[in-house]
C-alpha cells in the first residue's frame, strides 16, 4: 500500500508541472494584460511600460514562468496584481466560505438523495419511483442561476424571510444564526442539483446489486426485506458512489462559480471570475494549481478508500 501511494505521489509531480505550463501559456495568450487595466486618460505609455517592467511582464514568457516556479518551490505564490496582497492570503480568505457552502450542499444533497434513491430502487416502476426519478431529473436540469434568482424572488423579495445575498449582515459578522440565514438559499440551490444527480446514482447502483445472487440467498434464508436492502445490498451499492463523491471534491473547492455570482458569495468561484476579468496572473495560476492538485489528490484518496470498502481490491 505505502509504496503504491509513494509511486502515485511521484507521478503527480510531472503531471502538475505539465498542467502549470499549459495554464501559464493559456493565461498569457489571452489578450490584454494587468497593466491595461491601469489605463486612465492621463497615464503615458512610458509610465505603463515602467509598471510592466516592475511586474516583470516585459520578460520573455519562459523567464516569467521559471521566476514563478522558483517562487513556488520556496512556498511563495506571489502577490495579486489587483490588490497587492499575497495570493496565499487571498485564497485562504476565500476557501473557507466556499468550503462552507459546497460541503454543506453536498451533505444536505446526500441526506436528501440517499433515502429517495433507496426507496425508488426498492419500489422500482412504482408511482413513487416515477415521482422520484422525475423530480431528480428536474433537479439536474434546472440551471443554477435560474433556480437562484427564483428563490431570491420568492424568499428574499416577496416573503422577505431570507437575505438576497452576501455572507452576513453588516455589523453582525460573528452572528452564527445570521450566517446560517445567508447560507440557506445558496446551499439549497446547490443541494437540489446534487440531490438530483445522486438519487439517480444511488437508484441505479442499488438496482444492480439487488439483482445479484447473494441477495437471493439472503431472501431464501428468510431475512426481512428491510434488512436485506439496508444491510446487505446498500453497503455494496455505495461503493461506486464514493468514487463519484471523491471526483466531485475538487470541483466543490473550485467554487460554485454561478451560484457564488448570483448570491454574491465571496468564495473561490467569484475570485476566479474577478481574477480573469482583471488578468490577475499570479492569482489565476495559484487557483489553477490548487484545482489540479485537488483533482490528483482526490483521485488518489478515492483509490485508497476503495481498498478499504472493497476487499477485492488490493494495491501492490
Amino acid at each position, binding site marked *: 500500500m505505502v509504496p503504491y501511494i509513494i509511486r502515485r505521489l511521484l507521478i503527480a509531480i510531472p503531471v502538475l508541472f505539465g498542467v502549470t505550463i499549459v495554464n501559464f501559456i493559456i493565461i498569457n495568450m*489571452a*489578450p*490584454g*494584460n*494587468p497593466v*491595461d*487595466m*491601469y*489605463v*486612465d*486618460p*492621463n*497615464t*503615458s*505609455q*512610458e*509610465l*505603463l511600460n*515602467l*509598471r510592466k517592467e*516592475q511586474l516583470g511582464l516585459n520578460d520573455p514568457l519562459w523567464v516569467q514562468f521559471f521566476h514563478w516556479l522558483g517562487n513556488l518551490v520556496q512556498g511563495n505564490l506571489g*502577490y495579486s496584481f*489587483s*490588490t*497587492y*496582497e*499575497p495570493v496565499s492570503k487571498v485564497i485562504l480568505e476565500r476557501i473557507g466560505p466556499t468550503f462552507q457552502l459546497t460541503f454543506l450542499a453536498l451533505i444536505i444533497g446526500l*441526506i436528501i438523495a440517499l*433515502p429517495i434513491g433507496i426507496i425508488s430502487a426498492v419500489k422500482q416502476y412504482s408511482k413513487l419511483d416515477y415521482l422520484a426519478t422525475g423530480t431528480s431529473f428536474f433537479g439536474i436540469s434546472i440551471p443554477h442561476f435560474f433556480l437562484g434568482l427564483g428563490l431570491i424572488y420568492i424568499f*428574499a*423579495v416577496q*416573503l*422577505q*424571510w*431570507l437575505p*438576497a*445575498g*452576501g*455572507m452576513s*449582515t*453588516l*455589523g453582525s459578522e460573528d452572528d452564527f*444564526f445570521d450566517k*446560517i*440565514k445567508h447560507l*440557506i438559499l445558496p446551499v439549497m440551490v446547490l443541494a437540489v442539483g446534487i440531490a438530483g444527480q445522486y438519487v439517480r446514482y444511488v437508484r441505479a447502483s442499488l438496482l444492480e446489486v439487488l439483482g445479484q445472487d447473494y441477495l437471493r440467498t439472503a431472501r431464501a434464508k428468510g431475512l426481512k426485506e*428491510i434488512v436485506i436492502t*439496508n444491510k446487505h445490498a446498500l453497503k455494496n451499492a455505495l461503493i461506486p458512489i464514493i468514487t463519484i463523491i471523491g471526483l466531485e471534491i475538487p470541483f466543490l473547492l473550485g467554487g460554485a462559480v454561478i451560484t457564488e455570482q448570483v448570491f*454574491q458569495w*465571496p468564495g473561490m468561484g*467569484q*475570485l476566479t471570475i*474577478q481574477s480573469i*476579468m*482583471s*488578468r490577475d496572473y499570479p492569482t489565476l495560476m495559484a487557483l489553477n494549481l490548487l484545482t489540479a492538485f485537488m483533482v490528483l489528490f482526490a483521485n488518489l484518496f478515492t483509490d485508497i478508500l476503495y481498498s478499504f470498502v472493497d476487499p477485492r481490491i488490493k494495491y501492490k
Partner: protein
Amino acid sequence: MRIGKVKFLTIFSIALLLFLSACSGTNETSSSSKDKGKGNTAASLGDTIVVGVSNAIGTLNPINARDLGAMTLSSILFDPFFELNENMEFQFKLAESFETKDNQAFTIKLNSKANWTDGKPVTTEDVKFTFDTLANPAVQSVGLKTLNIIEGLDDNGQLPKGEKTVKGIEIVDEKTFIIHTKKPTDPNYIKGNLINIRTIPSHILKDKDPAKLHQDPFMLKPTVTDGAYTLVNFKGETQVEYKANPDYYRGAPKTEKLFFKVVPQANMTAQLQTGEIHLNYPSTGAIAIQDVEKVKNMANVEAVDGKGYDYQEIYMNTKTFTDPKMRQAIAYAINRPQIVDKLLKGKAEIIDGPYTKLHPYFDKDIKNYEYDPEKAKKLIEESGWDKSKPIRVNVPIGNQVREQSAVIIAENLKAVGLNVQIQKFDFPTHMQKGAKHDFDLMFLGIPYQVDPDVSAFYGTGGPYNFAGYSNPELDELLNKGKLEPNPENRRVIYNKVQEILHEDVPTISLYSDYLMGAVSKKVKVGLPKQFGMFYNVQDWVVQK
C-alpha cells in the same frame, strides 16, 4: 439502528423548518420596531450609515488607488488638499489657502489643526514625502502624471535618475509650502490635478523600501490616517467598514460607523427599499434607469437626479475612415435622440465633443450633429466609401445601456447602407484592441476631466487617442492651451479646439447620462452626488 436514522432525519427536517420560521419571525419584529422609531422621535439617531456601490473596490492604497471607488474611499481616509463640489468648484479640505502672484509659484497652507490619528500633526514634511514618493520611479503608484509641469520632474512626472526629491516642492514652514512650476500655469490646472493627491504620513513610511511599498501592510490596510473616518475592515469585493475619527480636525463625525456595501446594480433598489442601504454612490453604483420609476414610488426612499459629467463616445479609426466626410456621415447616421428618449428615458443629454454642458469650457455656439440619414448617405457617396467593406464595431461588455445602444447604432448604420459587425469584448481585451487601433468604431465611456486639456484624447500619440488621430494644427493648440496661464485666453484656444474636433470628428460623443441616486428618508444629512458627496461626511446623520 436503521429506524433510528430515519427518526433522526425526520427530527432534523422538522428542526430545520422550525428554524426557518423562527428566522422570519425575528425579521418581522425588527422591521416593525424600526417603523415605530420613525414615527415617534426625531431625536433618536442611528449609529450606522450604509452606502451602496456596485463595483468591487481595488485597493485603498492612497498613492495607488486606480478605480474610481478606491480613489473616493481612499480620500475618506486621507484628505486631499481640495475636493470638487457638484458645481465643479474647488472646496478646501486639507489645504486652508491657495495663492499665487505670478502663476508659477503656488503657496498652499495646510489646515493648522490637521493631525494624524496617532496624534502627530500633518506637516509639509508629509506633503514633500508624498510628492517624492509619487515621483519615485521605483515606487508602484499612479504617479504624478499631468503634474509633470512641476519643477524638477520629467515628462512622465517622475524624478530624473539620481534625484531623490522633487525640486519644485519648497517647504516654507511646518504648515506652508510652495509648488514651483516650470512655466506659468493656470491655477485651476494645478488645483484640478491636486484633487487626487492624498498626503501620506512620512513618519510611518519614510524608512520603508520604496520598491515594496505597494505590498506593505500599511498600504493594504492604512492604520494612521487624517480623514474623517478610520478603516476598520477592508473586503474590497463585499464591504468596507469605517469608524469615526473622534479627533478629526474638521469636526468629529456625527455617525459612528460608515459602511460601503458592494451590491450588484440589480439588487440596489431592493436593498434601498428594505433599508439595508441608506444611499448610493452614483459614480460607481448608480440606480439603473429602468428602476428610477420604482424608486420614485417607494414611500421610504427619495430619488435624486444626476447631472451630465461623464459621457459615452465612439472612436472612429482615422486609418479606416481617412476622409472626414465619412466620419461626419457616421455622426449624422446615428439616431442619438432615440437612444436618449427610449433607452435612457430622457435621463441624459446629447453632446458631440469632449466637454459636457456642465464643463466650464463647453462651447455653446457649436451645433450638434443632427440625426439626418439622407445627409449621411450623401456624404458616404461623396467620400467614395466602399459600402461592402465590413465595419468592425468594438463594444466592451459590462454596461448594459451601452451594449443596447450599440445595437441601435448598428441598425442606424445599416439603414444608411453600411456593413457593420458588432464585436463584444471583456474590458482588458477591448482596451488592448483600442491601443493597437484594431477596430473601426470603438465604444468607450469617458470620465469627467476637470481640466480642459484633452491632449491625451486627441494629441498625436496620446494614451487615449485610440482613433489614431493626428492633426499638427490641433497639436499646437493643445500645447498652447496647456501652457496658457490666463483662463480667458485658454477659453479662446479650447473653443478653437472644439471647432476643429467638430469638423474632423475623430470621435463622436453619444450621450452624457445622468447617474441616478437614491437616498432613504431616514438620512437627514447626506446626499448621493457624483462629486463632493463625501466632503461633509462628518456631518452625515441618519435616524434610527
